[in-house]
């Protein structure tokens, strides 16, 4: 019973850690907009956490610059299992307009498995909520798979 309750509360209280890997700040602002009174993601228990150790969902924005690549990999390694990785916007998936630059390492899929991709440049806050909601469901599935 406790196992079920824990798995269920996984999708009810996902804490977000946001990594900016050289983003233009557009996606970052939209992610914060999701927590404003108009969209209020806290309805579903979403909360921005200050440290990767508390995180359940890691949101990556930006085209992964060479400088931030190592930091990204190290940050992701510090997140306790189960965790879900979400890419925000076009940049982490492809590099967007920065692709082919000497200092850009995108796509992020080279370093980490991406669970949910939110497309858009930048995504509308509704799309961000939908993506994070999907990520929370995946989190619950991962927890159920861990305890099986």
């Amino acid at each position, binding site marked *: 019973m406790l196992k079920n*309750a*824990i*798995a*269920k*509360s*996984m999708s*009810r*209280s*996902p804490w977000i850690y946001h990594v900016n890997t050289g983003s233009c700040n557009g996606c970052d602002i939209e992610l914060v907009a999701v927590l404003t*009174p108009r969209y*209020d993601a*806290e*309805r*579903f*228990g979403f909360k*921005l*956490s*200050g*440290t990767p*150790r*508390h995180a*359940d969902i890691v949101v990556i924005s930006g085209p992964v610059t060479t400088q931030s690549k190592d930091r990204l990999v190290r940050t992701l390694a*510090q997140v*306790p*299992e*189960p965790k879900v990785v979400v890419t925000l916007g076009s940049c982490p998936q492809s590099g967007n307009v920065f692709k082919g630059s000497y200092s850009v390492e995108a796509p992020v899929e080279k370093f980490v498995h991406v669970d949910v991709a939110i497309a858009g440049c930048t995504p509308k806050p509704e799309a961000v909520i939908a993506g994070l909601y999907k990520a929370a469901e995946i989190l619950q599935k991962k*927890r159920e798979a861990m305890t099986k």
Partner: protein
Amino acid sequence: MDITGALYILFKILIFPGLLFAVVIGLFLAGLDRKLLARMQKRVGPPLRQPLFDFLKLLGKETIVPHAANKTVYLAAPVVGFTALIVLALFIPVFGYSTFSGNGDLIVILYLLTIPAVALIVGGSSSGSPYAGIGISREMVTMMSYELPLVVVLLTVARKVGGSALCFSLGDIVSWQAENGCLAFHPAMIPALLAMLLVIPAEVGTQPFDVAEAETEICEGPLIEYSGAPLAVFKLNTAVKMFIMTALFANLFFGGIETGYVALDAVIMVAICALVTFFSMTLIHAVTARLKIEHLFKFYWTVVAGLAALSLILVWVGL
């Protein structure tokens, strides 16, 4: 001791005024705080059960012990803090009745109240993170800031109730109020009441007095390296602390309300706790921004300590 007596004590410790009751009411107050805060910011806010979800979720997460950490101290710190809080819950009278009571239990409460903060400091320092280092230094300053007004408030209450004999027994304070009316309605105690209302948020660590755990600047300070079950216990500590502090407030200033029905008394107690949570934590959180550590120290040692001292002088001259 016979078996029923032992079971009764176990019941007291684990279920009624102890562990389960304190945890449930603490989580309820924490949920209420978040919901009301959200409503004041024109948001829908999380459900009332949200702190429970947070707690259960953290139980299901992997526990990571950093390489630089002292494993034993790191894992024991939250448990020590939690145990101290549960012992505290046994001292606080719920509807005029407490598990442990004695002559100087107010002093025991005062000392036990520092243990969760000390546990946070010890746990944070054992994690070996520089952010935790900044966090614990701030936590220590915060502790120093609110201890002085808290002691003065308790002294005022003791003087008011016991006269020149100074009554430090919480049970006696409650029964005195049953006879002479709540302390909150004595004009000389109003500044002390305000001071106590301002001590509660610093003790619990809510905004604007959460400088030690500022998640936007020092990444939750002492808690930075904690994950999984130990973090869950720390979060639970905050929730239980909410209950302990508001219940202590209720006993000090609104004690002695007795209707004769046990359940009704408990409901009144929880209602007072919820009201105090709203006025001392939620409302202040909603309308202020986080202070700097030096401002916090100055505020507590001038404004709050001044209010408490004013009350003490008024009581001392016999008002």
